[in-house]
């Protein structure tokens, strides 16, 4: 089953409904809604076009790898824009993304879950990096918030002679727990509450439901692993950057006084 161009154009009616609602309620979001829909359309068409090139049998797989590298860089820059209060986020985010991507790709391709080809590499890497980016921004913001809110407590621990990493540990643990819980909850509720994207797409595309479920499971575990790896790398990495070598807590931009 495929959707033709006319069908896609008709689905724009739904965007018009959203924009109309914004207009009716005076939310002032109608321009953003239309812009977001158009932008998504152009971006996806562009990506589809490039994928078409990458999937040609004569195209080298190196081009797909190059795309993966570009995604990693773009994601790190985006993370910086979305979490401006987090000090020196780019190198840390890149480390987290590379680790998460390398780990997931090694398992998936190394154990032959999927065959390594442009058709599998680019979308899977995109999925990992996209989720890793969201997790990075979330973990970065939470760390800065926690270390700003709990500044007094952390300094009280330092003043007791605790090394900075010991003083930070209870708060890092709290951040990790609260950043990972939503991901775990989503994983638990899958299938009961909603049918996730990859599976929905496959079923709409005419795939056998059981194979759709298997692919979805792999995707879900991939997302869970990517989010956990990046969140942990970010939280631990940041907890080191938020202290000086002589065990003082760095003054954060958000912190008062």
């Amino acid at each position: 089953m495929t959707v033709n161009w006319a069908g896609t154009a008709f689905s724009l009616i739904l965007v018009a409904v959203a924009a109309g609602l914004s207009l009716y309620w005076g939310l002032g979001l109608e321009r953003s809604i239309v812009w977001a829909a158009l932008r998504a359309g152009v971006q996806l068409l562009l990506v589809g076009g490039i994928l078409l090139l990458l999937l040609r049998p004569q195209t080298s797989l190196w081009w797909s790898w190059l795309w993966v590298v570009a995604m990693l860089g773009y994601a790190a820059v985006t993370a910086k824009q979305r979490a401006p209060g987090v000090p020196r986020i780019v190198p840390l985010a890149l480390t987290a993304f590379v680790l998460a991507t390398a780990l997931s790709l090694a398992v998936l391709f190394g154990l032959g879950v999927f065959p390594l080809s442009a058709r599998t590499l680019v979308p899977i890497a995109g999925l990992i990096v996209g989720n890793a980016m969201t997790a990075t921004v979330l973990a970065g913001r939470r760390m800065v918030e926690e270390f700003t809110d709990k500044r007094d407590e952390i300094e009280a621990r330092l003043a007791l002679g605790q090394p900075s990493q010991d003083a930070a540990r209870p708060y890092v643990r709290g951040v990790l727990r609260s950043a990972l819980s939503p991901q775990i909850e989503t994983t638990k509720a899958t299938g009961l509450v909603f049918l996730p994207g990859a599976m929905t797409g496959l079923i709409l595309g005419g795939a056998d439901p059981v194979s759709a479920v298997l692919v979805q499971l792999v995707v879900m575990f991939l997302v869970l692993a990517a989010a956990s790896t990046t969140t942990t790398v970010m939280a631990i990495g940041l907890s080191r950057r938020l202290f000086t070598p002589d065990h003082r807590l760095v003054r954060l931009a958000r912190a008062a006084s």
Partner: protein
Amino acid sequence: MDDSESVFALRNVTVRRPDPNGGEPRAVLDGVDTDIPGQGTTVLWGTSGAGKTTLLRLLDRLDVPDAGVVRYRGTPLDDLDPLALRREVGMVFQRPTPFAGTVRDNLRVAAPEADDGRLGELLERVSLPADVLGRDADTLSGGELQRMCLARTLVVEPRVVLLDEPTSALDAEPTRTFERTVADLAADGLTVVWVSHDAAQVRRVADRVLEVAGGRVRAREADDLEDEA
């Protein structure tokens, strides 16, 4: 006074802070020269924002000066292990800072091996009954919490405690209890550096007074202080 007789000696110490309005950094402490003697209670007195807390934080190396040198018993702080320094120099903050868990959990942060007998003695020194050990720290009153924080600092047997306006959030009665507790500790040989803006309190607790004003520090007589800085 010779540097080695004082517990802390500050020489030409300057601390600058960024201007919140984006202008040039402002010197909170501007070339401070002062000595804090190794006995009794020294009060750092001044208006809010004068730099008292900034000065106190330098003594525990929670902040470092932009220029100048701070010495502890004659040794520049840069040459000391900050963790060892902080075990000799404890600090109690303006607002109580209980950690999650019971009073026992709090007291054991710096001394995980301490048994209940030892913790009970510590609580007695800060006028708290030993049976609060098992209570959740959050259930204590403000005055009790601040004395628990003092006990938490004393667990590693520091030689000096730094108090940053420790009673500013307390009512009159718990304030007096806290003051009496600290006076007893000072009488037992603990060196106390106490930040306060309350002239009446300064007259009650101070053996000597250093006024922090205009980025400088000078010695004052407690009886000469105006009622409110």
